[in-house]
C-alpha cells in the first residue's frame, strides 16, 4: 500500500511518520505511536472518547485524517499533565470524584479544556458546560460530578486554563 511521509507535532514532539492516506489521527496515535489515552469507540464523532486538541481545539480524532493535521499541533491527554504535576482540570476531576471507570475521562478533560479556553475571561454557566460536553458521553457518572469539577476550575481560573 502507498505510504506518504508526514511530520506530526504531538505533545510538543515532532514525529516523522509514513502513513497510509486513509489512516485517521486516532489510528496513528494509538496504533502507530502507542499513545492510548484517546479511546476508540463509535468512530463516527458521536461519543467523544477519541477527543484530542488540534491547535488547542477539541476535535474527534476518529474522523480526522492524519494528513489533515500536517503542520498543526496535537495535544493528547498524555501531554496535558504528568502524575507529579496534574493539570488543574485533572486535579478537579479527582477532587470532585468525577472519575469512575475512567474510559471517557481523557476526552472529557480535553473537551473541557478547549471549552474553558474558548470562554476565557468569563465564567460559563452550568448550562453552557452541560452543552459543551454534549458530544462527549460518559456511561458511568451521570455527569453531575464532571460538571461540578469543570465549574470549579472555571470559577478558579475565570474560564481559560
Amino acid at each position, binding site marked *: 500500500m502507498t505510504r506518504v511521509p508526514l511530520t506530526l507535532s504531538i505533545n510538543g514532539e515532532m514525529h516523522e511518520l509514513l502513513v497510509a492516506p*486513509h489512516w485517521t489521527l486516532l489510528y496513528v496515535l494509538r496504533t502507530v505511536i502507542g499513545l492510548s489515552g484517546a479511546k476508540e469507540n463509535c468512530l463516527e464523532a458521536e461519543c467523544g472518547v477519541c477527543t484530542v486538541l488540534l491547535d488547542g481545539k477539541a476535535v474527534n480524532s476518529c474522523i480526522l*485524517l492524519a494528513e489533515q493535521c500536517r503542520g498543526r499541533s496535537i495535544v493528547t491527554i498524555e501531554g496535558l499533565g504528568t502524575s507529579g504535576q496534574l493539570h488543574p482540570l485533572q486535579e478537579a476531576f479527582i477532587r470532585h470524584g468525577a472519575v469512575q471507570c475512567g474510559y471517557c475521562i481523557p476526552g472529557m478533560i480535553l473537551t473541557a479544556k478547549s471549552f474553558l479556553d474558548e470562554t476565557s475571561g468569563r465564567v460559563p454557566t452550568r448550562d453552557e458546560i452541560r452543552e459543551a460536553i454534549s458530544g462527549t458521553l460518559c456511561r458511568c457518572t451521570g455527569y453531575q460530578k464532571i460538571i461540578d469539577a469543570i465549574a470549579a476550575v472555571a470559577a478558579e481560573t475565570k474560564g481559560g486554563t
Partner: protein
Amino acid sequence: MSFTVHHPASVSDAVALAERYGADGRFLAGGTDLIIQIHRKRLASQHLIDLTGLAELRAIEDAGDEIRIGALATHKAIERNPLFQGALVALAEAARVVGGHQVRNVGTVGGNIANASPAADVVAPLLALEAEVVLQGAAATRRVRLRDFLAGPGRTMRGDGELVREVHVAKPPPRSATAFLKAGRRKAMEISVVCVAARLTLDDAGRCAAARIALGAVSATTMRAEAAERALEGALLTDDVLRDAGRLAAGACHPIDDVRASARYRRLLVEALVPRALARCVERISGRRS
C-alpha cells in the same frame, strides 16, 4: 478504502485538481460528513482535495452592504463572530447547535451547504437571508442563489470541478431581525427533526414590510414557506396573524416519516415553531428600538 489526499497550495490549484479528477475527486473541508460517508463505504472517492490549508477560504468579511463568509469558516467561527450578533443572529443561533463542540470546531459552512442535507442547520438562516453562493471552477466563477443551488437531498447544481468558495449575505435594512429555532429529540448534539429560520422587517407603522421563512428537514431541500411570507407582508403582526403563518407553512411543507419523527409530528412542529420564530423577531426589533 484507498484514495490519495492532495494538499493544494492555493484555491486555483484546488480547482485545477478538481477539474482534473472530475467525478473521482472530492473536496475535503472539515470531513465531518465526508470521512464518515467514506468509512461507511457509501462513497469511494479516489482523490480527496484537502482544503484545510487554504487560509484565505476561512475569512469572514464585512464588505459594506453584505457579509462574505469563506467556505472554510467553521461553525464555531460563525457562532463567535460579532458580525452575526444583531440582525444576523439567526446564523450564530444555527451554527451554535450543529452537533457538539468537537464537530463545530471543524465542520464548515461550505460543507454544510455543499452536502445539501435537508436538515442542514446553517442552510436555513442562509436561505431566509436569501444568501448567494460563489462557485469557482477552473474556467469561470459564478454567483448563484442558494435556493437555486440546492437541488435535492445531497444534490446541488455544483459541477464536479466547482468549489464553493464563499457565501454572501446581504445586511438586512433597519428594523429587521432574524431568529432560528431547532427541534431535535434531545437538546444538544442532535440532527434537526425540524428547524425554522425567520427574517422580518417592520415598517415605521409596525406593519410587516418583508418576511422570509425557511424550513429545514421537512422537504427534499431546505425550503422557503412563501405562502406564509405573503400572508405576513403588509399585515400588523398580531398573534392570530403569526398563527396563520404557522398553519400556512405547515400546509406547504412535505415532511416524511423516518427514524427521527413522523411526518405528522414534523408538521405540528412547523406550525408551532414558525409563529414562535416570528414572535422572536418582533421582540428583537422592538427591543432594539427601546
